[in-house]
């Protein structure tokens, strides 16, 4: 009983900031509340959900969001690990570089996205300036669906790799040096050490990185809203942007809540998968033949 009492504030907080909005959204997703109803909530049963299931745009955005998250987080993981390994070495000026490396992460996303919008500008941006200097044709980075998608990934990787590197660096610093020394004495190369020691021991940190970053990337909004506005042809539109459009532009709150909940359910499935994967790989090691 006293345990429950002690936990009450935490539970209350969880209830207020998480459960309540979720229930509110669930209720809203069963209503038609839009500009057409004069913003009055009218119960419509599962109409919004039926619409969601056949809404090509929702599924296209879901796929785009997933692809964006998967590719950018994968790249961030690789680049972040490389940077973390570099920053973990001892070299002159490391402290300064460690500080500088964090800069992109410290920038507000909207500011950063505006910067990238300029960088990718056709034909006046620096990248196209360079292409022209080399005698090449300019590329319509934000005007062609594939390139625009790539641009969002590049900007996201640039922005969040420092965060990933920082977390992984913390992980690297938890690995005792003598493991590598023992490994080297046994005849292992540094490359083998990366796979046999570093990565397995970084796994809890990689897990945290994946959890944080995937959750963030699957909910990506501001970067895309500023950089491409979801275009061209909605090819970079994310689910969060779609939900936002429904609420703030179309004033269709019932459906917006449905989109948000749909996204939440997809996220939940993803997180569940990740947890399952972690549990499985965390099981006692099997003997290799």
């Amino acid at each position: 009983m006293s345990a429950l009492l002690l936990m009450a504030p935490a539970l209350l907080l969880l209830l207020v900031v998480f459960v309540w909005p979720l229930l509110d959204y669930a209720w809203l997703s069963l209503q038609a509340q839009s500009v057409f109803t004069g913003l009055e909530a009218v119960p419509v049963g599962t109409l919004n959900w039926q619409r969601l299931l056949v809404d090509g745009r929702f599924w296209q955005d879901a796929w785009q969001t997933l692809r964006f998250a998967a590719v950018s987080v994968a790249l961030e993981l690789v680049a972040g690990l490389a940077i973390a390994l570099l920053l973990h070495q001892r070299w002159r000026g490391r402290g300064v570089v460690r500080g500088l490396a964090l800069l992109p992460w410290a920038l507000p996303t909207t500011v950063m996205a505006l910067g990238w919008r300029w960088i990718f500008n056709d034909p006046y941006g620096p990248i196209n300036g360079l292409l022209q200097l080399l005698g090449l044709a300019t590329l319509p980075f934000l005007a062609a669906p594939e390139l625009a998608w790539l641009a969002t990934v590049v900007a996201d990787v640039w922005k969040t790799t420092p965060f990933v590197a920082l977390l992984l660096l913390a992980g690297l610093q938890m690995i005792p040096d003598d493991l590598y020394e023992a490994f080297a004495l046994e005849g292992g190369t540094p490359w083998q050490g990366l796979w046999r020691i570093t990565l397995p021991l970084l796994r809890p940190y990689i897990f945290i990185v994946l959890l944080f970053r995937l959750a963030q990337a699957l909910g990506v909004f501001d970067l895309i809203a500023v950089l491409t506005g979801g275009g061209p042809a909605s090819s970079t539109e994310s689910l969060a942007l779609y939900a936002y459009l429904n609420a703030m532009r179309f004033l269709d709150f019932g459906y917006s809540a449905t989109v948000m909940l749909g996204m939440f359910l997809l996220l939940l499935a993803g997180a569940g998968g990740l947890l399952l994967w972690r549990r499985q790989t965390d099981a006692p090691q099997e003997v290799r033949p």
Partner: protein
Amino acid sequence: MRGASRRRLTAIGLGLGLSLAIGLLSWAWARPAAVVRVLMPAPFADATADLVATFNRSHRDVRIAVTRGPFETDAVSDLAISSLLLGDSPYDLLLMDVTWTAKYAAAGWLQPLDPWLGPDALEPLVSGARAGNRIDGRLYRLPLVADMGLLYWRTDLMEAPPRTPDDLVAISRRLQEQGKVRWGYVWQGRQYEGLSCVALELIAGFGGHWGPGEAGFGLASPAAARAAGWLQQLVREGISPPAVANFAEPEALQSFEAGEAAFLRNWPYAWQELQRQGSAVAGKVGITTMVAEPGQPHAATQGSWGFSLLAGSPHPDAAATVLQALTGEASQRQLVRRYGYTPTLTALFDDPELVAERPLLPELRQALEQAVLRPLNPGYAQLSDILQRQLSALITGRGDPALAMARAARESDLLLRASGQEVGAQPKEVS
């Protein structure tokens, strides 16, 4: 005795009256002024700063407090909607884009202006500026400035502007082949409201009509498909740069101003930008209306800003006073003279002194007479979004115009049906 008593009575009456008058006066003096809060996009807040200051100096019982909103239209809308959704709006007046009116009115956020402005409020306006203010017979908005889509052309490269789409392509191609310009035509191809503005003019110019009354909100017509196909052709054939698919007004203006293109679609504000120092095309620019197929109207998308009275305003009388003052003739005259905005009042277009100062006014008026309104539908934002999506795909080289417009038509119908509106219904607007 009688006389004395009458005199006494008179004195008492006078004394009473005087004290009453003094009391009333002092009450009026001491009464706190009603503060009318106005949200405007930043450029308008800046342009009207002097007007507001003058108003506040000359009115004792009403004060204007302006909130300087963001620069971008969508951001202003977001700000307004966020506050309106929270319940009592912190603003009395809102400076709104023409496309918001139907949505805001349907959401119940606006108060009709008729009780204050009467049934003839729109009479002093040029006819092109009257549309888009009345919904279901009620006046919800009074325009401050007018805006309409214009075709800018290079007077140094051609004798006369093109009048048909084929003309535009032919002239562009010739100039491009001669190496006089890199691109023929720059416009707004980004997936945003500007693209719908571009499309509205063209669909009309190809003999169609985007709006209620026809199947697929007018997008099922061959005209819509031809207009969309023309836009696709522009990019595909290199008349317009591929980057046009990400151009909003500033990008298109930048390209034209640098002398890279023969034609530009933009709003009247671009004129001043193109004439300023550093512009490669200063003095070499003419304006006209959008190209159209022979026999079809040279349409100009109407995009005006006007004031609306928010439903929750605690002092609508004061707000109406402010609204009338800010949209009045003196106010509009100053906006025209200082900032080059296009007025909405007939009196100003007819004023020879003003025309002498702004020789563009007659041409602008002509364009305004051709103005087409974007559909006055509460679901306009979503209908526009449907069109933008399909057009953006076409411009970036994906898909077939007829199929894309058919898809947009189907989605529009679905939306209208889901919202309980009759597909193919006539607009309820009375202007």
